[in-house]
């Protein structure tokens, strides 16, 4: 019985670690999202005659203002979708984690009342 309990407990800690990882990932995505929003804002403030360059690897390439805006907008879209996905995954894992926790609590109660029928639910 004890080893079953330990197995379930380990599963719980696995869930906890997964949630932590997802949350740090989430923070990264949000930072990138904010940075891109910032860049788009700046690009929108520029006059049409402004020269924009993009750093691609070790080279600095000239891009048109519209190209740059499209680029950043696409990035924002992608990041937004990623953020949604991560949030959903966090929610799912949190639900699994809570369910497992409740199972463990019920299990513990059963262990403490081996002979009597457990009245508490």
């Amino acid at each position, binding site marked *: 019985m004890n080893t079953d309990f330990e197995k379930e407990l380990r599963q719980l800690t696995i869930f906890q670690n997964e949630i932590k990882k997802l949350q740090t990932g989430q923070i990264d995505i949000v930072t990138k999202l904010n940075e*891109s929003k910032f860049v788009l804002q700046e690009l929108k403030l520029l006059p049409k005659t402004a020269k924009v360059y*993009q750093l691609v690897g070790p080279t600095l390439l000239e891009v048109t203002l519209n190209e740059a805006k499209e680029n950043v907008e696409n990035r924002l879209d992608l990041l937004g979708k990623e953020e949604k996905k991560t949030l959903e995954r966090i929610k799912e894992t949190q639900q699994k984690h809570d369910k497992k926790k409740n199972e463990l609590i019920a299990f513990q109660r059963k262990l403490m009342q081996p002979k009597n029928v457990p009245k508490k639910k």
Partner: protein
Amino acid sequence: MTNKSSFDLNNLNPLQLNSLKEQISSEYQKYRQSYTQLLEIKSLYSNTLFSLESLQPENLNQPILAPLTESLYLPGKLTNVKSVLTDIGTNFFVERGVKDAQEYFKRQTKIVEEKAQEVLKTMKQNEESLKAVNTVLERKVYQQQQKFVGQQQQQQQKKVLKK
């Protein structure tokens, strides 16, 4: 972050209060880190503004030392005092005139200052919640100690009566 009324705090036992205290302290550390980073960025911007001031038309063709590596400089002449490339993030650069660039950096400094003020405010709130948790924790620990001492006294009295 969350506002815990003292009613909620009183319902927690010392162990829970302790872990709450640790949580708040680690949040505080993170805020402090953000704040220092923002201040660093602000000083970076003011340095940039200072360097931009030397890009005046009267400095055209002035001799300069351009850095090749950290310890190697190349003598040259300042030929461009009109435009600069400003890094706006995510690998994008914009060519601007010196005046525009100065305005850009002044704008950025303002934004960074505002963010720093926000972080400072949150830090203060954090400090207050930490104080509240500490007060309740101390009170609970004291209560527990008093209870323990009271119980011990009762037991001793019982022993005396039995004799």
